[in-house]
């Protein structure tokens, strides 16, 4: 493996040379890849044989800005919460949806509570990493790369796609929905990722002549960005064809609605992003790794309403997503996991908000999980020197369980080490 990282190392992916998408004759061969040319499909199929061949899907939901864990999974019995948060604690404790005697979900996570009651939600409490970093960008990078030493540049899912899915870089192995750029978790210079902001408007408005001209124009482009540009256009072209086929195979069976009033962040189209994720899954496009983002969690001020709104919005979008997958009979293989760069400070500030914190809970949702509470909740009476919650579960333990037990991947290759197991994925029947 080359030690030198940089954009110059970007390879022209083989799928570019294959010429891509001009007919759908290979659908059977490619087992789920829509509209690819025969030669390419055969190559992808062969590559799939070498790596991960199951139909498991992972959807990562980024709660960007630092989600307040103490208002997501609320400690119901701890008087210190009220001492630290005279304004924020009362309403959330009073309204929480109890999970156990000691913990309850935010009152707006009603749909998640239903899924929890059905045994489809695992909550891992106290997730973090050693020596917490309080910078958004540094901590995001740590979570995205799975590397608290901040040396890696490739995302954990990007590496997974490059090393263990198809080495040819089929564009729809990984997809960022509702975004314009490749999220860090999916980034790897050797992985091809699709980015779709809005599937309805995904296409060349100039039609076929422009598409043809541009395909010829973005060919063997020189310079450090050359391969990236060429890949972008080839990926767009492939994705247009896939969406055309996918759209015909999918009708939403749930009400997804993006709330226009939620203006805390430009990344507020969670429902439509999850609808696109459902479409790609239901239509059998071969998608494995999906990433969506909801922004606005950096609640330094007037957190009470803002955070409750965000929880409600998350709840509606996630509920619709599972309702839709259930109705299509496609939920069995899909795991959805939330992540956020950090939790928030137990003590509230003068602005009615909270500053950057450390450990927080993650939600893992779907039929593959063994429902319940995992890890141990951080203790409000035992804060670290910065006044923050101490972690009890390394976030890489969560990644490891996702990689090994859900995706059937080699976690060690991605994470570079082995971590304590958090067994939130069901053990398949017959395996002990």
């Amino acid at each position, binding site marked *: 493996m080359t030690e030198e990282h940089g954009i*110059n190392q970007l390879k*022209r992916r083989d799928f570019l040379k294959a010429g891509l998408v001009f007919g759908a004759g290979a659908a059977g061969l490619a087992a789920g890849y829509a509209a690819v040319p025969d030669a390419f499909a055969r190559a992808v199929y062969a590559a799939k044989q070498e790596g991960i061949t199951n139909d498991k899907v992972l959807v990562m939901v980024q709660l960007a*800005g630092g989600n307040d864990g103490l208002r997501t999974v609320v400690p119901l019995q701890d008087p210190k919460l009220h001492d630290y948060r005279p304004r924020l604690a009362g309403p959330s404790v009073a309204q929480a949806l109890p999970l156990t005697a000691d913990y309850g979900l935010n009152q707006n996570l009603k749909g998640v509570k239903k899924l929890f009651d059905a045994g489809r939600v695992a909550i891992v409490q106290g997730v973090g990493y050693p020596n917490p970093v*309080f*910078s*958004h*960008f540094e901590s995001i990078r740590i979570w995205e790369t799975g590397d608290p030493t901040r040396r890696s540049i490739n995302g954990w899912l990007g590496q997974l796609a490059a090393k263990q899915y198809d080495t040819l870089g089929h*564009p729809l192995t990984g997809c*960022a929905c509702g*975004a*314009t*750029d*490749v999220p860090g978790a999916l980034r790897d210079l050797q992985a091809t990722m*699709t*980015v*779709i*902001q809005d599937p309805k408007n*995904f*296409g*060349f*408005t*100039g039609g076929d002549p*422009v598409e043809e*001209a*541009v395909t*010829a*124009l*973005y*060919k*063997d*482009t*020189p*310079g*450090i*960005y*050359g*391969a*990236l*540009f*060429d890949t*972008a*256009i080839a990926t*767009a072209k492939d*994705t247009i064809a896939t969406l055309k086929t996918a759209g015909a195979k999918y009708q939403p069976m749930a009400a997804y609605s993006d709330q226009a009033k939620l*203006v*805390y*962040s*430009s*990344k507020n189209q969670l429902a439509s992003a999850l609808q696109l994720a459902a479409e790609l899954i239901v239509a059998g496009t071969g998608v494995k790794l999906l990433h969506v983002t909801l*922004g606005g969690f*950096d609640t*330094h*001020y007037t957190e009470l309403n803002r955070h409750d709104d965000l929880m409600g919005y998350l709840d509606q979008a996630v509920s619709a997503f599972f309702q839709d997958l259930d109705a299509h009979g496609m939920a069995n293989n899909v795991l959805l996991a939330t992540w956020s760069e950090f939790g928030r400070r137990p003590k509230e*500030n*003068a*602005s*009615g*908000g909270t*500053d*950057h914190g450390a450990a927080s809970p993650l939600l893992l949702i779907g039929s593959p999980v063994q429902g319940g509470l995992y890890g141990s909740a951080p203790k409000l009476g035992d804060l670290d020197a910065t006044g923050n919650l101490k972690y009890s579960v390394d976030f890489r333990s969560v990644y490891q369980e996702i990689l090994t037990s859900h995706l059937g991947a080699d976690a060690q290759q991605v994470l570079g080490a082995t971590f304590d197991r958090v067994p939130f994925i069901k053990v398949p029947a017959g395996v002990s």
Partner: protein
Amino acid sequence: MTRRAVIGAAVAGGAGVAAFRLLGLAKPAGNPVSQSLNGATDWISPLATERAQVQQLLRRATFGAGPADLEKALSDGYAKTVQRLVETPAAKPPPFPGGDQAAKGSPLKLVQLQKWWVDQMLKGPTPFAERMTLFWHGHFTSDYRKVGLQSPYVYWQNLTWRDNAVGDLRSFLYQVTTDPGMLRYLDLGTSTGRSPNENYSRELMELFTMGAGTFGEDDVRAAAKALAGWREPQPAETVRTGVFDPRRAYTGGPVTFLGKTARFDTKGVLDQVLAQKATAPFVVRRVLVNFVMPNPSDATVNRLAAGFVKSKWSIRQLMHDVFSSDEFKSASSYRSLVKQPIEFMVSALRALGAESLGQLTQQHGSGMGQTLFDPPDVGGWPLNEAWISSNTVMARVNFVTALMQAVKDLPVSTDAHVQQLDGVLSPATAQLLSAASSDQERWTLVLASPEFQLK
């Protein structure tokens, strides 16, 4: 030989520059590329010629050039053009209608405000100051979502950033810290000495001046205390800056901030930040990765940083030094930066002399990942490769399609690849251009080309 024929000849000559040079052409045109770079090819830098230097300067220091701008700059020469761009103070833009009166019930009209700014980029007489205003909007970032539109704050911030765009960093930082939009965006306006909000304190050091890893959590807390006390102005106060209320300030005595124990006021905090070794290199690196190359060497950064400090933090002097540097004109600088979407769109409009079509930038920016006054997060706009994805490159092409439908009279395209692309073309671009049969086809290819996405 006509230019068309030149391109054709270049293509017929295959991928070799040698074959092309045999034709004895003095002017680079339709130059295929052939330098090897890790198995791929790189652009051949034309920056040894003053013409190409001037063209690159206009791409980076302004929002691109139409034929008249280019003619003037070429006849002035590189050094004089740098001088003119950098020394001309920012022109005052026409007031934004209703901007100062924005309030609850009569909010700022975001779409019109975006158009107002794009018009300054398209038509303003001081394009370098506009380019710097955009740079600072991405550096000292705020967004309309959190700041809101029911006050003039977003508009005022744009005016303040423009006023300070090439001033001195010390005064600028004070303006930034006390700007009403910033007070709201990073919560300093609701922080108090008794219960400080750390948001501004942290980002001041991490994102605005020093960089991550150069300060500790204790410093974040200390500065949060020392900075507390500002609030937003009341409309009756008729000021465009925050108001300091000593009753809200920290009264707990001296704090230790970045190694010094004192009763810091806001100016004292900023002075202490500017006294840190990390500050000048951090800001200079941000400038270089936006204007020169993605990976400047430490030596380059430190040399320019020393000059920046010596000039008493003159941004104008810094930018003069940057554009006059060998690095700016070096081969490794050539096409090493990706145009931001707004730069791409404005430069396309300017290339066509379509300055009246600013509204076109509005429906297209979002698909490319950039909406003015709405950066993705407090880190501001991303850079270079982050602008390239299946979604964004397609959106750029779609903008060109829309542009072609909207422009009534296209300029003659014979020279477009020389004027806009320095005549340095990929084999694919050269081949398609030589086969194109109309102005519309040629302009589509030029503006949608990978070459035009770079600067």
